[in-house]
């Protein structure tokens, strides 16, 4: 896979805020890339810099082998799908889709027949048949999403940036659009850079998942690697499926104010920030008096409440320092015993299941 976009040491500051702090990034050709970042991590700024709406303070952007820092947005050949869709409210669906082809600077399509055919093909591709003459204010949210996408794809950009494209849709539609977006991208063979604040969306959609933290790419890997081996405590936190502890490494243990966790055989990962992470679904809840095996770690906590989500139950415990500790029990494996609120339990996990950062 060759690279379509390459960012090197890109910086962008707003006053005292470092939105992008020396960011490096490489996007492969013909791939679905998901960019996960919490709000304030600079993800919108990154997209806007790539699209050319913002000028970076420093760094280089190479797109298909050419430097594009000084190139105007309309000369970049990079599509952009906005969170609010930003459709042209005074034009019909068909006119919205045709707009780019008809009015673009380079190689506009002026022949109405060709234009009509291209629009028709695109309408079919995104599944908007029969809505061509509607006003864009007369269609549903999901349909608007398709118009926004069709309008961009028809100009055949080499890269499409999607800024939280599913954020404005309701939950049902979001699930369906996930599949559709992937399918549409595969048919077009371009690279999608899909920005989202939802870890499940990022993991479900990205061939490659990037995690953005404090203006830098904290991890770039496939979904499985990101999920199972987050590169730093910060990445683990964004994934929303790890209990995290701050502390220090000392000999063969991880020392934190609550307890010292004995370590397994794995070598601690270097991340610059010491930390200890254990996945929600790798923890067993036992009565206080049950024995602990040699390769296990044990921590006591007070049960607070649980939440049933169909396939699993998430139980919430209060640690002795007041923080919340979460345990996920998949119902297909074992049906856990009912827990008594305000009672204390032992939380136990295997030493080797924990991720230790140095």
């Amino acid at each position, binding site marked *: 896979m060759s690279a379509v976009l390459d960012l090197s040491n890109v910086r962008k500051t707003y006053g005292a805020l470092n939105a992008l702090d020396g960011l490096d990034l490489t996007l492969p050709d013909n791939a679905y890339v998901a960019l996960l970042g919490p709000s304030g991590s600079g993800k919108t700024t990154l997209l806007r810099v790539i699209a*050319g709406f913002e000028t970076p303070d420093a760094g280089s952007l190479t797109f298909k082998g050419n430097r594009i820092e000084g190139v105007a*947005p*309309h*000369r970049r050949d990079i599509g952009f799908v906005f969170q609010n869709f*930003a*459709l042209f409210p005074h034009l019909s669906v068909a006119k919205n889709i045709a*707009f780019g082809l008809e009015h673009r*600077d380079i190689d506009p399509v002026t022949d109405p027949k060709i234009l009509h055919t291209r629009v028709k093909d695109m309408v079919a591709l995104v599944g908007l048949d029969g809505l061509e003459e509607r006003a864009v204010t007369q269609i549903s949210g999901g349909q608007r999403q398709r118009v926004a996408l069709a309008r*961009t794809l028809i100009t055949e950009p080499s890269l499409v940036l999607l800024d939280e494209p599913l954020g404005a849709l309701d939950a049902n539609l979001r699930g369906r659009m996930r599949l559709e977006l992937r399918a549409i991208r595969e048919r077009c063979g371009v690279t999608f850079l899909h920005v989202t604040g939802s870890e499940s969306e990022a993991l479900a959609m990205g061939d490659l998942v990037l995690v953005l933290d404090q203006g830098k790419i904290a991890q770039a890997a496939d979904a499985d690697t990101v999920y199972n081996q987050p590169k730093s405590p910060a990445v683990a936190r964004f994934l929303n499926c790890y209990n995290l502890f701050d502390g220090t490494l000392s000999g063969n243990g991880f020392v934190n104010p609550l307890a010292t966790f004995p370590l397994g055989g794995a070598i601690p990962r270097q991340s610059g920030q010491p930390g200890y992470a254990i996945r929600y679904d790798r923890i067993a809840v036992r009565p206080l008096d049950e024995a602990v095996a040699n390769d296990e770690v044990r921590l006591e906590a007070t049960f607070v409440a649980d939440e049933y989500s169909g396939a699993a139950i998430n139980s919430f415990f209060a640690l002795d320092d007041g923080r919340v500790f979460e345990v996920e029990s998949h119902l297909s494996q074992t049906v856990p015993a009912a827990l008594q609120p305000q009672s204390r339990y032992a939380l136990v996990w295997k030493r080797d299941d924990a991720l230790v950062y140095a």
Partner: protein
Amino acid sequence: MNSSGTKFALGVYTSLFLVFLYAPMVVLGILSFQTGPEGGPQFPIIEWSTYWYQHLFGFTPPSRIAPLPINEALFRSLVLSVMTMIVSTVLGVSSAQAFRRKFRGSGVAFYLIVLGMMVPGVLVGLGMALVANVLGIDRHWWGTAFVLHVVYTYPFAFLVMLAILNRFDPSVEEAAWSLGVSPIRTFRKITFPLIFPGVLSAMLFAFTLSYDEFSRTLFASGRDLTLPLAIYGTFSVEVHPNVFAFGVLTTIFSFALLGVYAALMTLSIRRAKRIAIQEEA
């Protein structure tokens, strides 16, 4: 507020206030139907007639009362207002467009523009007359007076457009750029159609303000009269009901203009409303 006595008193007062605002115009309208040429600009109405309206258009036999010089003045005023409207709207739109990005010195630039509507006409008019005099330029309604009209109306157009563009979603323009459409074409095809109601308001403001302007014109226009100057000329002489008839006609013209504007606005608002309703459904 729930003190019915005070409320009633203030209500009566407000009605009297409105009478105060409207009475002179009503009286002027009534007296414009005085008979002529012997009927004067006062009560009682000797006989109802449209003599003075005919007098305005030169349909009456010559009498000792000279007709108002309105033919050419009307033409000049209309041309001047249209010129002013176009230039000040273009300037207003482009300046307001510039103010969409924050830039250093924006405060100074803002006050410089707004100063144009604050400084009284007598001062700028005098200043422009002095400049023309010192530089040896002839003063004309289409030259020195025109530029002052723009100085006066451009701030209004600017403020109207600023208010409109403040509510404009810039991502629509960015979307067009990202489709490969140049900023200029984007402005023509996307931005302009969307801000058009605002442009219409700015044009209306500029036209009417310019059409009615006289203090700047008085100093800067030289010999040829515009309509307001023709009326101003009657101030120092005896007034006849023909001026009243003229006043009624210009008022009707102003309202006709307002009517056209209101119709155009209602059309675009109705369209917007229809869209909003469908959106909810």
